[in-house]
């Protein structure tokens, strides 16, 4: 029983951390989808690129993580603005699949740029391989029912939730938030009413890139930093956006926690079954697909009404 409680708490802390990062990524995806009418498949690629900027500053130039992170967030901001200005805004308006396809092209460019610029997987002249890593913000932790709760996990969860609450307050209670909401509901009318929709979409891209990058930086110490290390988070974030419904800002955030908790607790609940580890993720995904089959627009989403 003691071990059950310990594993329960151990999984809980990890799931909270993962859920928070996934929710941040999902919020970024929904923010872009709502304001710029683009499904941003490149969310995780942009985040990976900028997480590598942070890792490069930390590993190769000896910056502290507390300095490298803000610098990486600045580059993320620039990346987001650049992508919106250079590509998304120029996309033909009459073709609904043009913009998602452009973001798929951005993924490919970033996949190629990472080994080209950061030389991942290559070796230095002296033969040692080039690797990147990022440390945790805080070291150490406390013991809760035998499971260790790291300070870094608390930090991640608190910052993520603070960011998300901040975004909700911003969207619901400020003038710029109002601009975001009207852009999300009807861009053309909003522009006619004098709302600077161009700036709204630009800042959405910039902030989405920053959210993704922050998620990437806190996840980096937990895994091996490779060009694909955020793909799983991205897939989960998309899952969350679909399950929560693209039509609300809070739906995806809630769905992100639900999915990560299901995914994390599956092997714990079914630990009597050998295949739980192997099949767990697939079964959770299949369950969600079946859920989507019956509720195609998600938990909180509404069916869009379209004129023929």
């Amino acid at each position: 029983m003691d071990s059950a409680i310990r594993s329960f708490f151990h999984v809980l802390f990890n799931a909270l951390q993962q859920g928070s990062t996934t929710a941040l990524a999902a919020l970024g995806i929904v923010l872009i989808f709502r304001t710029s009418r683009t499904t941003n498949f490149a969310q995780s690629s942009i985040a990976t690129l900028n997480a590598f900027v942070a890792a490069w500053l930390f590993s190769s130039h000896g910056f502290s993580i507390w300095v490298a992170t803000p610098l990486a967030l600045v580059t993320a901001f620039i990346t987001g603005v650049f992508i919106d200005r250079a590509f998304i805004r120029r996309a033909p308006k009459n073709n609904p699949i043009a913009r998602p396809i452009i973001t798929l092209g951005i993924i490919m460019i970033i996949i190629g740029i990472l080994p080209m610029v950061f030389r991942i997987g290559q070796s230095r002249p002296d033969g040692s391989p080039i690797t990147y890593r990022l440390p945790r913000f805080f070291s150490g932790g406390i013991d809760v029912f035998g499971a260790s709760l790291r300070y870094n996990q608390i930090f991640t969860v608190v910052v993520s939730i603070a960011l998300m609450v901040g975004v909700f307050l911003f969207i619901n209670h400020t003038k710029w938030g109002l601009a975001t909401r009207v852009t999300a509901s009807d861009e053309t009318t909003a522009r006619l009413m004098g709302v600077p929709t161009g700036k709204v979409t630009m800042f959405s891209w910039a902030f989405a890139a920053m959210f993704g990058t922050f998620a990437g930086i806190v996840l980096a110490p937990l895994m091996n930093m490779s060009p694909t290390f955020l793909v799983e988070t991205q897939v989960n974030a998309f899952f969350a956006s679909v399950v929560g419904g693209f039509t609300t800002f809070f739906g995806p955030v809630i769905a992100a926690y639900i999915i990560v908790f299901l995914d994390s607790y599956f092997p714990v609940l079914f630990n009597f079954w050998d295949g739980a580890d192997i099949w767990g993720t697939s079964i959770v995904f299949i369950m969600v697909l079946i859920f989507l089959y019956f509720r195609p627009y998600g938990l909180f989403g509404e069916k869009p009404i379209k004129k023929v």
Partner: protein
Amino acid sequence: MTKTNKTNLPKELYEKFKANKPLHFLLFGIGLAIMLLAPYYDFIPGGRNTNGFVAPAIYFTVAALGLNLLLGYGGLISLATSAFIGVGALGMGYFMLFQEFSFFLSLGLTILISLGLGLLVGLFSLKVSGIYLTIGTLFFATILENIFRSVLPMSTTESFREITFFGNFVIDTSKSYTQLRTGEPQYDRYIALLIMVAVLVLSMIVIYNIIKSRTGRAFMAMSRSANAAAAMGVNIAKYRIIAFMTASLFATLAGVLYAIYGTSVEKNIWTLELSLFILAVVIVGGMRSIFGTFIGALVIFTVPNLYINEYLRTFSSFLENRFGINWQPVGFAPVFAGLLIIVVVLYYPRGLIKLFYDARILLLKLYGLIRNRLAKGGATDE
């Protein structure tokens, strides 16, 4: 009367030939097959075996044709292409190497599995549409990828040595290629290439027939507006399922061809990246164009590996020798494909196939200009 008939005969034949698209595909296949003989007869500068670079273009074109049907005609983005190619390659590998079934039994079982999975995606597409559907295909791909990684028993060491098609017809793809000049050429890999070209031509004809039939027109109607099409009496459910099953079948055939030619059964390469490369093939070559798909495949899969990487390597060694900068030319192919996608979507939405059309218009314009100038010049001279 008879005279005019006689003089028009070549023109009539030409018109007939122009209208007979399947014949074009057949002639294209024969031409391609002859061109693939080039390395054996030392027509390639430097004596390289370029077939290894053209082969991916051939088998990925088959998959891209299926995606083109979905994307160009149906307006549906599928991100599960690579997973379905994986089903083809790994299915053949599993049945032939681990169950030791015959080639055709394995082929039949693999195709059945792929059609079943295509049916599932199709059924899913009935309820979910637009961007939700694209993300849904991404999940299908992720689930299949997970299953490949953790369930299938393959490692990178297993590979096809000999494929027995029937009786004495055996292809040993492990035999290395030899040029006629240097020794007795080994034609086993060439026969594998011929099979691939045959499948390519066949799939081109099948896609052409689908597009020109009632089904193709239904796809077009659906891509503009599913509701409007349904109001005009198009059975959306039926045609969506047909579209997804055809696309998955073509992707699986591409995987089977990969297994025949590629000889090994990798299970870690069927990722989103490959799906994106295939998407790039369709976009860059030209949506709704069959020859365009092949041109796209050549540009995306053959050109970077055959030419550009070579130049970049030369450039990199130049940098190393001259300035002592250690820069390695990696990751070029995806950047090239990604940039092409974006440039084509933004500035050339009909794809590279339109280059031929534009070039013809330009030539005709130039021809007209020159003729006018000559006519004018002649007039002043007199």
